[in-house]
């Protein structure tokens, strides 16, 4: 099963990545190689096995509903390329 150009472009768009024309074939080839290897999971004897999400079986780890104010809120904007009125500036969104 080969991945098509259309598919990889759709996937790249979902991931908000541009693929240059000259890159597409390379990415396609890599993706095919890796998927061909990865599909061996379908040969694994897993009938009747449940899924594992994380590597630890912890449950119900909750936080108390108590306010802790983060003081240095300026530092949260200092890495932004463009801000205005203490907000992040982006192209106009309708």
């Amino acid at each position, binding site marked *: 099963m080969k991945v098509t150009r259309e598919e990889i472009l759709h996937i790249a768009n979902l991931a*908000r*990545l541009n693929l240059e024309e000259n890159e597409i074939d390379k990415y396609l080839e890599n993706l095919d190689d890796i998927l061909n290897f990865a*599909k*061996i999971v379908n040969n694994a*004897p897993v009938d009747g096995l449940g899924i594992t999400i994380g*590597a630890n079986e*912890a449950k119900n780890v909750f936080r108390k509903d108590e306010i802790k104010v983060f003081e240095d809120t300026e530092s*949260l904007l*200092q890495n932004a390329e463009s801000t205005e009125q203490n907000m992040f500036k982006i*192209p106009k969104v309708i």
Partner: protein
Amino acid sequence: MNITELTVHELQEKLKNKELTITEITKAYTDRINEKEKDVQAFVTTLTDTALRESEEIQTKVEKGELTGEFAGIPIGIKDNMCTKGIKTTCSSRMLENFIAPYDATVVEKLNKENMINLGKLNMDEFAMGASTEYSYFKKTRNPWNLNKVPGGSSGGSAAAVAANMVPWALGSDTGGSIRQPSSFCGVVGLKPTYGLVSRYGLVAFASSLDQIGPITKDVYDSAMLLNLISGYDEKDTTSSDRKKVDYTKCLKNNVKGLKIGVAKEFFGEGINKEVKSSLQRAIETYKNLGAEIEEFSLDIAQYALATYYIVACAEASSNLGRFDGIRYGYRTKEFKNLRDLYKKSRSEGFGPEVKRRIILGTYVLSSGYYDAYYKKAQQVRTLVMNEFDKAFEKYDVILTPTSPTVAFDIGSKSNNPLEMYLSDICTVSLNIAGLPGISIPCGIDKTGMPIGMQLIGNKFEEETILNAAYTFEQATKFREKYKPGI
């Protein structure tokens, strides 16, 4: 005496007997960094000046008796994917070239509480995605044993810096082998703790269900000490374990009599380099002579685990790296027509090819139509892998494998073949899939003089068992006394 060749416990000894001062130690390391960094290229950010200043402050506090902690003034290096307040945290990516975290990672807080001295942030594969540190946006770190070879990855900067005596020890992170494989390539000791033993808060996420922070050190005793410092429950990380803390230096008994070691024969099959195999065979003999009970057994999960690893890790990464959108922090493209253009250009220019490759793979396996065939299946295989290990640990205390199929390879020899690069994780990923602890220690060198690593796998939260097994082997073989990197 050559200060930078000492282990941390040796440094502590000399500090106690006043043979050395904190400033002397820090000076020795900053000199070493200034001398060797041009060859090894281990650091993204060096902090030599601030380190010297801090060392003087701490020295005086210690003299005044204001500081008494046994780690006060001990230098360390930190992989550049752990957040350090006020200091750049780049993940070796153009995306975060100028990123300054507004907070400290929990592990960094713990080191600061001990008044340890940060010598700098260490190079890595971009966002920890790689096995050679060639995928760093900034530089290719060299292997101190042979500057034409890779140090391994993704924690290549950390392992190389320890091997080259540019830091006494370092923190790395391990998602599929990123602590153990570079430690093996660089002839040092690397421990990947049980998932949940060390807080991930402040570790820039690659794959949340697999990532763990761990020590890279010159010997096993230092590994146990650094694990003492960074382990423990953190209310900021709900996946961290709340079991009570233990002192990992207490388990180093230098005795493996009766220890049941299982040798997983599939991990010695084709694809594993001959010299690596024979070196491991000698290590097994050593354990026999030390009174351990060795048994070969079948653990046929490596291929499944590796496939599962690349599905799960890339799926999680494709989501974890979504936040790098050029809005709040990180690289933003200079020219854009609209929001979508801003997103796409910023991400395409900010991420390197390997990161993009994995984001695309991860997005693909999660996308509608493929989820069940890949991601869901992988989660079932994950259960299978865990079950297989559970069975094995009913019979054995420790499972012994090579850390890597090969020794360090030449720079540039694999960087154009992703799949081949992925295969070098074959021995290490299954532990991350199952959440198990593993340690890599040097067990010999090949005829080209490159170190070979042995991996000891323990059951969940059984770090003490593998640390003792590793320590006992180390005491018997004295690798560090026999072999030193060329640099």
